[in-house]
């Protein structure tokens, strides 16, 4: 990461931003407002900063959509090319963010430019971050699509913004409140940063692991480590900051590749998420999944793509679930050590990566060839976390 010369930053922790006067026609006003709010929240989560929306007067961060020459000596260039720009913290134009209205902005589609992503980047400038050379960073100058529903601020950016403002001192809760100020109606969003354990200092035991759209999520207590192809180091965050309606910790997780949904299990309940949104009527009971009522919890789950089945582990046995028929296969449960020889008697977490299965037990895991029913390698869990 890098900051602007002289460490330019706001000398206060409450920063104001403006209502948007000229909305882009690409999105509904509600979608623009939501994109802007979430983009500011990205930075509020990891700093002591609070953002207050002003409905009149001059805000620290004035936000506008404009085309070509728009009065700041940095004209936009029509479609593509430059998407937006923002000014470092200082009086007057400092902090302001301008978006090129010749672009096609979107709410979440990969066709066009996701306003939330562009705005989150620009607000990094508004707060004092310059461009980063780290390709995985939000502050890398080139646009690249990321699913806004699963976006987590990369560590490079977290380190950058915390070098200016420090971390969020208030623990691990997330709150959104609405109030007012002398300037008019305001919306105040306060989000607090997690205190993250150092997993590299001791052997780590995973609670669960799942994939989601080619990315991997490793669960431990109330945290997850999020590994993507664009970052060499997994990003850490609270489960609740990723899936606000998820339980605080999980026993098992897997991705249904047919629907792209993630299922999280905790105790005798399970949740199903599309992106960050929990589906209606969840959580449901394990008996709704097809387990007998005697099963108190699921230890691990993994979808095996080669057989289109999901294996679910409970104590020393496992079930096979047919996603197509939405029911358990007959003949299960089976003993793990007999039918999946080489992985022991219990499984804490399981996942599939590049066609291979991985069964984790304790701090170690076994790479497994399912068709041959053979263990290939044993490795330590922490190797997946960049330790």
């Amino acid at each position, binding site marked *: 990461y890098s900051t602007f010369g002289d460490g330019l930053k706001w000398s206060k922790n409450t920063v104001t931003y403006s209502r948007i006067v000229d909305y882009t026609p690409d999105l509904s006003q509600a979608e623009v407002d939501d994109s802007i709010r979430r983009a500011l929240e990205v930075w509020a989560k990891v700093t002591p900063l609070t953002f207050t929306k002003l409905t009149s007067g001059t805000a620290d961060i004035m936000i506008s959509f404009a085309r070509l020459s728009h009065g700041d000596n940095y004209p936009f260039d029509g479609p593509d090319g430059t998407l937006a720009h923002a000014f*470092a913290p200082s009086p007057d134009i400092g902090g302001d963010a301008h978006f090129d209205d010749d672009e096609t902005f979107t709410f979440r589609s990969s066709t066009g430019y996701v306003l939330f992503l562009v705005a989150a980047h620009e607000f990094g400038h508004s707060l004092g971050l310059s461009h980063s*050379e780290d390709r995985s960073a939000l502050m890398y100058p080139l646009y690249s699509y990321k699913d806004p529903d699963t976006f987590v601020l990369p560590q490079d950016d977290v380190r950058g913004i915390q070098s200016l403002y420090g971390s969020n001192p208030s623990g691990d809760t997330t709150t959104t409140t609405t109030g007012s100020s002398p300037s008019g109606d305001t919306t105040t969003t306060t989000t607090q940063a997690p205190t993250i354990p150092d997993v590299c200092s001791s052997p780590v035991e995973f609670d669960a692991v799942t994939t989601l759209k080619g990315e991997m999520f490793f669960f431990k207590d109330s945290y997850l480590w999020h590994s993507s192809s664009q970052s060499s180091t997994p990003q850490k965050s609270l489960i609740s900051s990723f899936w606000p309606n998820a339980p605080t910790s999980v026993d098992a997780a897997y991705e249904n590749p047919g629907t792209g949904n993630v299922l999280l299990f905790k105790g005798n309940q399970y949740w199903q998420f599309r992106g960050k949104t929990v589906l209606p009527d969840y959580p449901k009971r394990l008996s709704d999944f097809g387990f007998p009522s005697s099963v108190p919890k699921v230890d691990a789950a993994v979808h095996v793509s080669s057989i289109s089945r999901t294996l679910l582990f409970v104590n020393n046995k496992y079930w096979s679930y047919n996603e197509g028929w939405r029911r358990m296969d007959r003949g299960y449960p089976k003993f793990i050590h007999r039918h999946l020889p080489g992985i022991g008697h219990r499984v804490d977490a399981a996942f599939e990566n590049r066609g291979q299965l991985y069964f984790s037990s304790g701090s170690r895991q076994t790479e497994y060839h399912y068709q041959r029913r053979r263990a290939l390698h044993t490795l330590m869990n922490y190797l997946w976390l960049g330790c």
Partner: protein
Amino acid sequence: CVPVSKVTVQDEGFAKGYLKRFFNLTEEKDPLSRKGADRMSKKLSEMQKFFGLRITGTLDDNTLEMMKKPRCGVADENIAR
């Protein structure tokens, strides 16, 4: 015998504008002077280094392709002051 460059005069003009905008390339009064060419090459190298490209100091296809990607309009050199 060397491959013929696909870089056109328009591409060079585009690249010069890009470097002026994002890497603080300043205009030389005499565009044919050696100093002006050195400055352009230096800024191309800076840009190639920033984006992790092969540093050649010349305008090649990869560099041009990088310049044409959608991006933020804030200069990659700190211009806050």
